[in-house]
């Protein structure tokens, strides 16, 4: 396969310090996150605070990872002072860009010298919209319903018209590459607002689309359950098998959705896409590798995969299950106690369940991020052991440092 030299930027979600570290460890070029409210995961993600921002940006700078702050809900008059506070905090802490859709945010960011990326909430679907937003932003996150042909046409037209952002460089295009998709055209869903007064466009979506429904015949009152299909619940987007085509289409940034997801989800998805991007770059992208990545992506939260609208589908593909179809699940076991640096040994307390040699484990923590490990040896009371039981503390050899804030899980088959 021909090698492609233009590098795709991999943008990963960070809904917590655990996920942030996981994204960094797995090789993200950049991360996006929300602070306080006014972002599209106000309800489902824990979100950072204004006070956390300094630590987040310092950590990312240390690892040469760019930071993008989501500030992309609808903004009302009563939000203006908070919006300005968040933009000011972004500037003071050296955030690389704010992801925005409301014109009030674009306007204030431009006035105060903060870079902006146009959110998918703005539904950029045509070249004139790109040209309009270029006055404010160097990066546009395109609407998720475009085909790759449309994306490619936009990229070519940006070059032809030399559409430049505030930096003086050609505008760059970003697309969603992996994760949950909305049943409505991005950012245009009002179901949650109608049912629960909880606006999805203010980050408070209650996910009505993920449930089952009954159709009632108004004449007879007969009820028909819509069986075997969650008629509004889209499968999750996965583009890893045609990532080469995404690069060829002229996309510059690939975003992984999932600020509401766990650290191991962020780690696995980011790592798979990191490897895939490298494979596209060095010309080793192959069907065998795709099969391996897809198998690994299936181990973490997913509603089944489909290719979204990129390859020309006109209708969404719906899941036939509630929740995740992940092939693996994690079982909480206990917590970290101590790390012996010289011996490279970690000590843990098993608070529940049991653990034995050969088990796959997962360790997550706000500083540790994610460690995946298969147990080859265990020690209880300084004696070699085959297994550990609930209530016992034990040690095992670990290359990476663990901490008392870390949680320990066992990874098992989901079935």
């Amino acid at each position, binding site marked *: 396969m021909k090698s492609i030299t233009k590098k795709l930027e991999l943008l990963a979600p960070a809904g917590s310090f655990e996920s942030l570290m996981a994204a960094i460890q797995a090789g993200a070029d950049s991360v996006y996150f929300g602070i306080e409210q006014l972002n599209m995961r106000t309800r489902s993600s824990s979100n950072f605070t204004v006070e956390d921002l300094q630590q987040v940006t310092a950590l990312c700078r240390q690892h040469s990872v760019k930071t993008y702050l989501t500030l992309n809900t609808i903004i009302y008059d009563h*939000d203006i002072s908070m919006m300005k506070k968040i933009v000011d905090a972004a500037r003071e802490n050296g955030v690389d860009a704010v992801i925005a859709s409301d014109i009030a945010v674009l306007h204030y960011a431009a006035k105060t010298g903060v870079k902006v990326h146009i959110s998918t909430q703005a539904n950029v679907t045509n070249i004139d919209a790109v040209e309009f937003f270029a006055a404010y932003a160097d990066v546009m996150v395109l609407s998720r319903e475009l085909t790759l042909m449309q994306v490619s046409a936009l990229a070519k037209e940006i070059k032809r018209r030399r559409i430049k952002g505030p930096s003086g460089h050609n505008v760059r295009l970003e697309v969603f590459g992996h994760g949950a998709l909305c049943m409505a055209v991005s950012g245009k869903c009002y179901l949650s607002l109608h049912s629960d007064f909880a606006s999805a466009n*203010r*980050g408070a979506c209650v996910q009505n689309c993920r449930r089952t429904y009954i159709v009632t015949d108004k004449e007879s009152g007969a009820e028909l359950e819509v069986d075997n299909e969650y008629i509004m619940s889209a499968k999750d987007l996965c583009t890893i098998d045609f990532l080469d085509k995404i690069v060829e289409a002229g996309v510059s940034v690939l975003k992984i959705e999932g600020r509401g997801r766990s650290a191991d989800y962020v780690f696995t998805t980011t790592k798979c896409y990191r490897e895939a991007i490298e494979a596209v770059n060095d010309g080793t992208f192959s069907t065998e590798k795709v099969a391996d990545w897809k198998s690994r992506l299936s181990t973490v939260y997913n509603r089944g995969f489909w290719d979204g609208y990129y390859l020309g589908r006109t209708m969404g593909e719906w899941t036939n299950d509630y929740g995740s179809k992940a092939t693996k699940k994690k079982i909480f076991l206990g917590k970290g106690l101590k790390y012996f640096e010289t011996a490279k040994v970690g000590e843990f307390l098993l608070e529940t369940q049991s653990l034995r040699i050969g088990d796959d484990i997962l360790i997550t923590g706000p500083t540790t991020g994610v460690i995946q490990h298969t147990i080859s040896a265990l020690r209880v009371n300084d004696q070699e052991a085959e297994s550990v039981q609930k209530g016992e503390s034990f040690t095992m050899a670990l290359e990476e440092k663990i901490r008392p804030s870390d949680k320990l899980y066992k990874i098992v088959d989901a079935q």
Partner: protein
Amino acid sequence: MIRITQQRAKCIGCHACVDAAPHRWRVSRKDGKCTLIGSKEKKGWHIALVDEEEWPANLIAEKNCPVKIIRVEKV
């Protein structure tokens, strides 16, 4: 009397309570979250004891709160 409680940390500043009972709620310019006027904070819960005439409006505030952090009860 009625007792209104709000778990303020979880507020998303949507303004629904202010729309329902504007004399009892306002949006803070400091953090963009809704503030229960006349309340005292106790372990994260903001509590106000008010006259019964405020019952209907604050009941709507409770019902419309998208993150269900407001509770109104007669005491």
